[in-house]
């Protein structure tokens, strides 16, 4: 028993920053959404408008979920539950893999298994610790909803529903750790399971049956195959039924059983799927720093593009719906105007908001390229490569260049997805042009992030990841959400996203974009010069 206590305490200590950050982010998102929704959709007629719009548009339901009437809390659940479910799922799969497969891969598990803790206690400790985290999550979620003034029963059901998603994906992470040889592969499989589960319920919701009054939608049978779907089936604040969560418990039990069976039959460090071996010689394309950077970066670039495409589909399919609906004078229009800083028509405003988000995705992709360069320099083969006849400029230029190409690809994918979606729903041609212009307008801000983070890396390499992601989060908060929570205008001006050109037909003002592109060139040039002058810092 003491062994178990030591191991659980060790896990709590190791995660003492990241798990609280996850829990606080999820709670803050929920609380923020609840307050924002009360603020903008406080009136039942406004909510009715919103729900009617959603139930008429499969794209909204694909992204969000199925509406269940016009109650304030029910609308909140409809807008955030599936999305929070993904976050909870990711928190749990990462937790499981971090304490199971990653430990075995690094060899630390051998050290622990050689003590009286043996082989069975560490996974058991991980399971108990994961359950504890999900219990805290349930309490935090219920607490936030109560704080926002919601009904107690529904609040508790929501907490339990999200925790149930968490427990299922905790065990999914456990099985992935048994199956896969590396933490990277196990995380890939488990994250794939989370996203697949979101996708399944998205399809189920999009093809749901709309009720006669158009205020609620019953998702199709596919939702029963998704752990996130089970959580939605609890219908918090309308039906408050916990029965679907029995399915979650059963699934978790089955996954634990599978993991135990595999574990009993394998060596510590071994896995069901062996590492696939690869090419013994390199393809001709892997011949220089650029080829290497592309080889290392394309998988994540594809992932960023998929994210941009999802938002693009959302924006393209909805742009028209927004324009043709009777939303013109509703709070949604106000909301959009506040988010988008203008735009001549409602459609332009809406597309501009969506592409601001795609711009954030592109900036994230840019930052990730620079963070990869830093990791190469400090932990992997950067030193080996720089000891060959490759100049500093050539090496850094490869990663920065790949970053710039990735940014263009992400924006182009977002625009293409938006155009295709708009064509599918039969949007007018000017909205297609809007998509392309809006995507192009995001390029300067994303390139500015690329160049500024590269500059940070060239001066204080250690701070690349922290400062890079921190700048992005701050810019998103100030530039996009600042106005919603009532921050003064000048704080919003600090964010590059506030200066991206807003497509307004022929009157589009490009000056902000031109200035940012110029600044990006300057920062990028400075990064090259400063990197030439400093030592290569490996740890």
């Amino acid at each position, binding site marked *: 028993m003491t062994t178990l206590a030591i191991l659980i305490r060790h896990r709590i200590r190791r995660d003492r920053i990241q798990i609280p950050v996850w829990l606080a982010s999820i709670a803050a998102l929920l609380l923020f959404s609840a307050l924002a929704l009360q603020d903008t959709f406080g009136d039942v007629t406004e909510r009715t408008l919103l729900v009617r719009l959603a139930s008429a548009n499969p794209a909204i339901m694909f992204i969000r979920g199925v509406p269940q009437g016009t109650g304030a809390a029910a609308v909140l659940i409809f807008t955030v539950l599936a999305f929070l479910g993904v976050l909870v799922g990711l928190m749990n799969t990462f937790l499981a893999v971090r304490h199971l497969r990653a430990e075995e*891969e690094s060899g630390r598990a051998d050290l622990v298994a050689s003590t009286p803790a043996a082989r069975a206690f560490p996974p058991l400790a991980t399971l108990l610790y994961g359950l504890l985290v999900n219990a805290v999550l349930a309490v935090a979620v219920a607490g936030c909803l109560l704080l926002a003034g919601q009904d107690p029963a529904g609040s508790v059901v929501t907490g339990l529903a999200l925790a149930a998603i968490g427990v299922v994906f905790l065990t999914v992470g456990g099985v992935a750790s048994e199956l896969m*040889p*590396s933490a*990277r592969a196990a995380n890939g499989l488990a994250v794939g399971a989370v996203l697949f589960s979101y996708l399944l319920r998205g399809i189920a919701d999009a093809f749901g049956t709309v009720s006669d009054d158009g205020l609620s939608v019953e998702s199709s049978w596919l939702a029963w195959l998704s752990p996130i779907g089970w959580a939605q089936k609890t219908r918090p604040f309308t039906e408050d039924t916990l029965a679907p969560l029995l399915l979650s418990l059963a699934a978790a039990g089955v996954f634990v059983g599978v993991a135990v069976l595999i574990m009993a039959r394998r060596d510590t460090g071994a896995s069901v799927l062996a*590492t*696939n*071996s*690869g*090419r*013994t*010689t*390199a393809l001709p394309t*892997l*011949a*220089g*720093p650029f*080829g*290497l950077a592309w*080889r*290392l970066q394309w998988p994540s670039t594809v992932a960023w593009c998929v994210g941009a495409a999802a938002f693009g589909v959302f924006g393209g399919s909805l742009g028209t719906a927004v324009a043709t609906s009777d939303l013109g004078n509703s709070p949604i229009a106000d909301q959009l105007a506040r988010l988008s800083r203008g735009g001549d028509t409602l459609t332009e405003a809406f597309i501009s908001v969506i592409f601001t988000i795609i711009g954030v995705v592109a900036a994230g992709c840019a930052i990730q390229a620079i963070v990869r360069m830093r990791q190469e320099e400090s*932990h*992997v*083969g950067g*030193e*080996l*490569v*720089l*000891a*060959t*006849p*490759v*100049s*500093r400029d050539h090496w850094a230029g490869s990663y920065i260049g790949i970053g710039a190409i990735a940014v263009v690809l992400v924006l182009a994918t977002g625009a293409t997805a938006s155009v295709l979606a708009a064509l599918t729903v039969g949007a007018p041609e000017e909205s297609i042009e809007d998509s392309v212009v809006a995507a192009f307008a995001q390029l300067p801000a994303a390139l500015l992030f690329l160049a500024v983070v590269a500059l940070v890396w060239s001066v204080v390499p250690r701070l690349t990841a922290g400062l890079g992601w921190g700048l992005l989060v701050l810019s998103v908060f100030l530039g996009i959400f600042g106005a919603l929570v009532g921050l003064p205008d000048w704080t919003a001006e600090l964010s590059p996203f506030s200066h991206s050109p807003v497509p307004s037909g022929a009157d589009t003002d490009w000056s902000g974009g031109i200035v940012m592109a110029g600044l990006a060139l300057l920062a990028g040039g400075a990064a090259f010069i400063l990197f030439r002058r400093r*030592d*290569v810092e490996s740890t």
Partner: protein
Amino acid sequence: MSTVISAQDLRKYYGRTRALDGLDLTVTTGEIHGFLGPNGAGKSTTIRILLGLARATSGSVTVLDRNPWTDAVALHRKIAYVPGGVALWPTLTGGEAIDLLSRLRGIDDPVQYAARREHLTEAFQFDPSRKGHTYSTGNRQKVALIAALATPASLYLLDEPTAGLDPLMEAVFRRELSAVVADGATALLSSHILSEVEQLCDRVSIIRAGRIVETGTLADLRHLTRTEVAFSLDGLAEADLRDIPGSHDLVIDGPRARFTADSDELVDVLPTLAQLRVRGLTVTPPSLEELFLSHYGDLSTDVARQTRRAARHSRVGR
């Protein structure tokens, strides 16, 4: 003989820490130069400066008559580098990493490269088809070694290159390195595996706290220390032994007596030993280990001697 590496009064400060504190180093063409020192003495810092990965705070350095900081690219065409504790790309196979590094260095003759790569892969018994993250320490080291040896270089900068290799593979490494040096290359071999340095190196520099404290051939260095002489006591009285000319530190240890003599004056001791008709005589020149330890911290030469004796006895015992 021309100079390949020349460093004078090299200093490298990281804030207040003095990684190098006036280092002088000369390596001439065609030699394997041993670079000895404990962890943190400044070996890796020196090699990173020689590669132009780090810039010296002050002092002058040339490698193959070039400035490594400003001429890194041109210089690197002639240099092969093997770091200690190689880190690989997790998603690239070992074979891909070898090809990538070799291509970056420049492959003049693809056919010759393929043959050379094949030979080295076999010699080091290396499986090039696995992903980077699955290799053990020794296998990661092999990737860098094969990449370094697969294309010709004028200068090999080797920073503890055999870390994690088994003794068999160490022998392969010694053989392959000797072969390229016999063909005219030069090598700077940083190591703390003394037997490796003893077998491979023509000259040795010992670094301590950022300075070279000793440099020369192994024979030169041996002259600076004492040789141990030991023999069976066998009826001899301690008094008979006290006045052997040139002897120091006499110890009677059970049935054996031992003392040390300056390596240069060893011949002066021998006539007396002959007169005493000592039996079971052993004369042991100082090992590199003793040379090394004599320059370091709290461990005196005496400790080294005792350690060596203990090791010898346990070998005999087995």
